[in-house]
Protein backbone atom coordinates (compact mmCIF):
# COMPACT_ATOMS: atom_id res chain seq x y z
CA UNK A 1 0.00 0.00 0.00
CA UNK A 2 1.34 3.45 -0.82
CA UNK A 3 1.97 5.67 2.19
CA UNK A 4 0.46 9.07 1.52
CA UNK A 5 0.39 12.03 3.83
CA UNK A 6 -1.22 15.40 3.36
CA UNK A 7 -0.95 18.79 4.99
CA UNK A 8 -4.51 19.98 4.42
CA UNK A 9 -7.83 18.27 4.95
CA UNK A 10 -10.89 20.04 3.61
CA UNK A 11 -14.49 18.94 3.90
CA UNK A 12 -16.56 20.45 1.13
CA UNK A 13 -20.22 21.20 1.65
CA UNK A 14 -21.21 21.60 -1.99
CA UNK A 15 -23.24 18.76 -3.44
CA UNK A 16 -22.68 19.62 -7.10
CA UNK A 17 -18.91 19.22 -7.16
CA UNK A 18 -15.70 19.69 -5.25
CA UNK A 19 -16.02 23.40 -4.58
CA UNK A 20 -13.01 25.12 -3.08
CA UNK A 21 -13.00 28.69 -1.78
CA UNK A 22 -10.09 30.72 -3.09
CA UNK A 23 -8.64 34.18 -3.48
CA UNK A 24 -7.30 35.08 -6.90
CA UNK A 25 -4.93 38.05 -7.25
CA UNK A 26 -3.57 40.00 -10.16
CA UNK A 27 -1.71 43.29 -10.20
CA UNK A 28 -2.61 44.18 -6.62
CA UNK A 29 -6.30 43.44 -7.04
CA UNK A 30 -7.84 40.37 -5.47
CA UNK A 31 -11.18 38.64 -5.53
CA UNK A 32 -12.49 35.96 -3.21
CA UNK A 33 -14.51 33.41 -5.13
CA UNK A 34 -14.62 29.65 -5.60
CA UNK A 35 -13.41 27.04 -8.05
CA UNK A 36 -14.24 23.41 -8.71
CA UNK A 37 -11.51 20.82 -8.65
CA UNK A 38 -11.62 19.19 -12.08
CA UNK A 39 -9.15 16.42 -12.79
CA UNK A 40 -10.53 16.20 -16.31
CA UNK A 41 -9.74 19.80 -17.18
CA UNK A 42 -6.34 20.32 -18.75
CA UNK A 43 -5.88 23.78 -17.23
CA UNK A 44 -7.43 26.30 -14.86
CA UNK A 45 -10.27 28.11 -16.58
CA UNK A 46 -12.03 31.02 -14.90
CA UNK A 47 -14.98 33.11 -15.94
CA UNK A 48 -14.53 36.29 -17.90
CA UNK A 49 -16.35 38.14 -15.14
CA UNK A 50 -13.71 37.27 -12.54
CA UNK A 51 -11.05 38.55 -14.94
CA UNK A 52 -12.94 41.81 -15.25
CA UNK A 53 -13.23 42.15 -11.48
CA UNK A 54 -9.45 41.77 -11.27
CA UNK A 55 -9.05 44.57 -13.78
CA UNK A 56 -7.48 42.23 -16.31
CA UNK A 57 -7.52 43.09 -19.99
CA UNK A 58 -8.55 39.51 -20.69
CA UNK A 59 -7.90 39.47 -24.42
CA UNK A 60 -4.38 40.80 -23.91
CA UNK A 61 -3.36 37.41 -22.52
CA UNK A 62 -2.03 34.28 -24.21
CA UNK A 63 -4.82 32.99 -26.45
CA UNK A 64 -5.71 29.33 -26.03
CA UNK A 65 -8.70 27.39 -27.24
CA UNK A 66 -10.05 24.38 -25.38
CA UNK A 67 -12.26 21.59 -26.64
CA UNK A 68 -15.15 21.04 -24.26
CA UNK A 69 -16.75 17.63 -23.98
CA UNK A 70 -19.78 18.95 -25.84
CA UNK A 71 -17.65 19.79 -28.88
CA UNK A 72 -16.75 23.09 -30.49
CA UNK A 73 -14.08 25.38 -29.11
CA UNK A 74 -13.91 27.43 -25.98
CA UNK A 75 -11.74 30.52 -26.36
CA UNK A 76 -9.69 31.79 -23.45
CA UNK A 77 -6.71 33.99 -22.64
CA UNK A 78 -4.03 33.04 -20.14
CA UNK A 79 -2.72 35.33 -17.43
CA UNK A 80 -0.26 34.77 -14.62
CA UNK A 81 -2.12 35.13 -11.33
CA UNK A 82 -1.81 34.09 -7.71
CA UNK A 83 -4.32 31.62 -6.33
CA UNK A 84 -4.67 31.14 -2.57
CA UNK A 85 -6.80 28.34 -1.17
CA UNK A 86 -6.91 26.51 2.14
CA UNK A 87 -3.63 28.06 3.25
CA UNK A 88 -1.78 27.17 0.05
CA UNK A 89 -0.54 29.81 -2.38
CA UNK A 90 0.31 29.08 -6.00
CA UNK A 91 1.45 31.24 -8.88
CA UNK A 92 -0.32 29.89 -11.92
CA UNK A 93 -1.46 30.59 -15.42
CA UNK A 94 -5.23 30.87 -15.39
CA UNK A 95 -7.18 31.01 -18.63
CA UNK A 96 -10.06 33.47 -18.57
CA UNK A 97 -13.02 32.90 -20.85
CA UNK A 98 -13.28 35.26 -23.79
CA UNK A 99 -16.97 35.73 -23.16
CA UNK A 100 -19.01 36.06 -19.95
CA UNK A 101 -21.27 33.22 -18.89
CA UNK A 102 -18.98 30.38 -17.77
CA UNK A 103 -20.90 28.93 -14.84
CA UNK A 104 -17.93 27.64 -12.91
CA UNK A 105 -14.28 28.35 -12.38
CA UNK A 106 -12.31 25.20 -13.00
CA UNK A 107 -9.20 24.14 -11.15
CA UNK A 108 -7.58 21.80 -13.63
CA UNK A 109 -4.32 19.97 -14.06
CA UNK A 110 -1.92 22.58 -15.38
CA UNK A 111 -1.51 25.36 -12.85
CA UNK A 112 -3.26 23.62 -10.00
CA UNK A 113 -3.42 19.84 -9.76
CA UNK A 114 0.08 19.44 -11.16
CA UNK A 115 1.43 21.52 -8.28
CA UNK A 116 -0.28 19.52 -5.55
CA UNK A 117 -0.45 16.13 -3.97
CA UNK A 118 -4.19 15.57 -4.16
CA UNK A 119 -6.36 13.01 -2.45
CA UNK A 120 -10.12 12.65 -2.68
CA UNK A 121 -12.73 10.65 -0.81
CA UNK A 122 -15.91 11.91 -2.39
CA UNK A 123 -18.00 9.57 -0.23
CA UNK A 124 -16.87 11.63 2.76
CA UNK A 125 -16.84 14.96 0.87
CA UNK A 126 -13.19 15.29 1.77
CA UNK A 127 -10.15 16.42 -0.17
CA UNK A 128 -6.58 16.09 1.03
CA UNK A 129 -3.94 18.46 -0.26
CA UNK A 130 -0.26 19.19 0.00
CA UNK A 131 1.71 21.63 -2.05
CA UNK A 132 4.57 20.03 -3.94
CA UNK A 133 7.76 21.92 -3.34
Amino acid sequence: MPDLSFDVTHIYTSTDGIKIPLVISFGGKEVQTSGYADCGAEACIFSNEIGQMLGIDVEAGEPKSFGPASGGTFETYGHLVIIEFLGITLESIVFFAKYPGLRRNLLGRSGWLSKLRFGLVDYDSTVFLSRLT
Partner: protein
Amino acid sequence: MAQTQSSHNGVLQQALDLPNEQKALLLEEILQQELGSSAENNRPFLEKLDEALTRLEARIQSRATAPEGAVFVQHSGSRQRPDPAPAMEWLRLHSREYGGEWVALDGGRLIAHGPDAMEVYAAAEADGAYLPMIDYIEPADALPFIF
Protein backbone atom coordinates in the same frame (compact mmCIF):
# COMPACT_ATOMS: atom_id res chain seq x y z
CA MET B 1 -11.41 32.60 36.07
CA ALA B 2 -9.23 31.32 38.91
CA GLN B 3 -6.41 29.08 37.81
CA THR B 4 -3.74 27.18 39.68
CA GLN B 5 -0.03 27.34 38.87
CA SER B 6 -0.15 23.81 37.42
CA SER B 7 -3.02 24.66 35.12
CA HIS B 8 -1.08 27.79 34.09
CA ASN B 9 1.89 25.63 33.24
CA GLY B 10 -0.34 23.25 31.32
CA VAL B 11 -1.77 26.07 29.23
CA LEU B 12 1.68 27.44 28.56
CA GLN B 13 3.03 24.02 27.59
CA GLN B 14 0.04 23.44 25.32
CA ALA B 15 0.81 26.69 23.54
CA LEU B 16 4.51 25.91 23.27
CA ASP B 17 3.79 22.48 21.82
CA LEU B 18 1.85 23.91 18.91
CA PRO B 19 3.37 23.79 15.44
CA ASN B 20 4.91 27.08 14.42
CA GLU B 21 2.13 28.19 12.13
CA GLN B 22 -0.43 27.57 14.87
CA LYS B 23 1.71 29.53 17.33
CA ALA B 24 1.55 32.41 14.90
CA LEU B 25 -2.21 32.11 14.72
CA LEU B 26 -2.42 31.98 18.50
CA LEU B 27 -0.45 35.18 18.85
CA GLU B 28 -2.67 36.75 16.28
CA GLU B 29 -5.73 35.73 18.30
CA ILE B 30 -4.24 37.33 21.40
CA LEU B 31 -3.31 40.50 19.61
CA GLN B 32 -6.73 40.82 18.03
CA GLN B 33 -8.29 40.51 21.47
CA GLU B 34 -5.85 42.99 22.97
CA LEU B 35 -6.45 45.54 20.29
CA GLY B 36 -10.18 45.03 20.45
CA SER B 37 -10.74 46.12 24.04
CA SER B 38 -8.74 48.17 26.51
CA ALA B 39 -10.45 46.29 29.37
CA GLU B 40 -8.57 43.21 28.19
CA ASN B 41 -5.35 44.73 29.46
CA ASN B 42 -6.37 44.09 33.07
CA ARG B 43 -6.86 40.35 32.64
CA PRO B 44 -4.07 37.83 33.29
CA PHE B 45 -2.11 36.92 30.18
CA LEU B 46 -2.42 33.17 30.68
CA GLU B 47 -6.17 33.46 31.03
CA LYS B 48 -6.28 35.19 27.69
CA LEU B 49 -3.87 32.61 26.29
CA ASP B 50 -6.16 29.81 27.45
CA GLU B 51 -9.18 31.42 25.81
CA ALA B 52 -7.23 32.06 22.64
CA LEU B 53 -6.23 28.40 22.54
CA THR B 54 -9.87 27.39 22.82
CA ARG B 55 -10.82 29.74 20.00
CA LEU B 56 -7.94 28.48 17.89
CA GLU B 57 -8.98 24.86 18.39
CA ALA B 58 -12.54 25.71 17.34
CA ARG B 59 -11.22 27.55 14.33
CA ILE B 60 -9.00 24.69 13.29
CA GLN B 61 -11.80 22.18 13.65
CA SER B 62 -14.19 24.31 11.62
CA ARG B 63 -11.90 24.76 8.66
CA ALA B 64 -9.06 23.14 6.84
CA THR B 65 -5.84 22.68 8.69
CA ALA B 66 -2.97 24.81 7.51
CA PRO B 67 -0.14 23.02 5.78
CA GLU B 68 3.21 22.78 7.49
CA GLY B 69 5.23 25.86 6.80
CA ALA B 70 2.35 27.71 5.25
CA VAL B 71 1.70 31.17 6.50
CA PHE B 72 -1.81 32.46 6.52
CA VAL B 73 -1.39 34.72 3.58
CA GLN B 74 -1.37 38.34 4.43
CA HIS B 75 -3.11 40.97 2.36
CA SER B 76 -0.89 43.80 1.24
CA GLY B 77 -2.39 45.76 4.12
CA SER B 78 -1.35 42.98 6.55
CA ARG B 79 -4.93 41.86 7.03
CA GLN B 80 -5.68 38.19 7.45
CA ARG B 81 -7.87 36.56 4.86
CA PRO B 82 -11.49 36.22 5.93
CA ASP B 83 -12.65 32.74 6.83
CA PRO B 84 -14.59 31.52 3.77
CA ALA B 85 -16.62 29.00 5.79
CA PRO B 86 -19.59 31.29 6.63
CA ALA B 87 -19.94 32.37 3.00
CA MET B 88 -19.69 28.78 1.79
CA GLU B 89 -22.37 27.77 4.29
CA TRP B 90 -24.58 30.66 3.14
CA LEU B 91 -24.18 29.47 -0.45
CA ARG B 92 -25.14 25.96 0.56
CA LEU B 93 -28.27 27.14 2.35
CA HIS B 94 -29.49 29.84 -0.03
CA SER B 95 -28.49 28.75 -3.50
CA ARG B 96 -32.04 27.89 -4.54
CA GLU B 97 -33.22 31.43 -3.80
CA TYR B 98 -30.60 33.13 -5.97
CA GLY B 99 -30.16 30.75 -8.89
CA GLY B 100 -28.84 32.44 -12.02
CA GLU B 101 -27.45 35.37 -10.04
CA TRP B 102 -24.12 36.62 -8.80
CA VAL B 103 -23.91 37.20 -5.08
CA ALA B 104 -21.51 39.17 -2.91
CA LEU B 105 -21.16 37.95 0.66
CA ASP B 106 -19.43 39.35 3.69
CA GLY B 107 -19.20 36.13 5.67
CA GLY B 108 -22.81 35.12 6.12
CA ARG B 109 -24.16 38.56 5.18
CA LEU B 110 -25.58 39.09 1.70
CA ILE B 111 -24.26 42.40 0.39
CA ALA B 112 -25.69 42.35 -3.11
CA HIS B 113 -27.11 40.00 -5.72
CA GLY B 114 -28.21 40.18 -9.31
CA PRO B 115 -27.58 38.86 -12.81
CA ASP B 116 -24.91 41.43 -13.67
CA ALA B 117 -21.56 40.40 -12.21
CA MET B 118 -19.95 43.81 -12.40
CA GLU B 119 -22.92 45.55 -10.77
CA VAL B 120 -22.76 43.09 -7.89
CA TYR B 121 -19.01 43.57 -7.63
CA ALA B 122 -19.41 47.36 -7.62
CA ALA B 123 -22.02 47.11 -4.87
CA ALA B 124 -19.66 44.95 -2.83
CA GLU B 125 -16.85 47.46 -3.26
CA ALA B 126 -19.17 50.29 -2.24
CA ASP B 127 -20.15 48.32 0.86
CA GLY B 128 -16.55 48.35 2.00
CA ALA B 129 -16.43 44.79 3.30
CA TYR B 130 -12.94 43.31 3.20
CA LEU B 131 -12.54 40.75 0.42
CA PRO B 132 -16.18 39.68 0.05
CA MET B 133 -16.98 36.32 -1.53
CA ILE B 134 -18.15 36.92 -5.11
CA ASP B 135 -19.74 33.88 -6.64
CA TYR B 136 -22.15 32.85 -9.34
CA ILE B 137 -25.03 30.61 -8.33
CA GLU B 138 -26.16 28.23 -10.99
CA PRO B 139 -29.90 28.11 -11.73
CA ALA B 140 -31.69 25.33 -9.85
CA ASP B 141 -32.88 23.86 -13.14
CA ALA B 142 -29.48 24.02 -14.84
CA LEU B 143 -28.34 20.84 -16.46
CA PRO B 144 -25.52 19.00 -14.66
CA PHE B 145 -22.24 20.70 -15.46
CA ILE B 146 -19.57 19.17 -17.65
CA PHE B 147 -16.94 21.18 -19.43
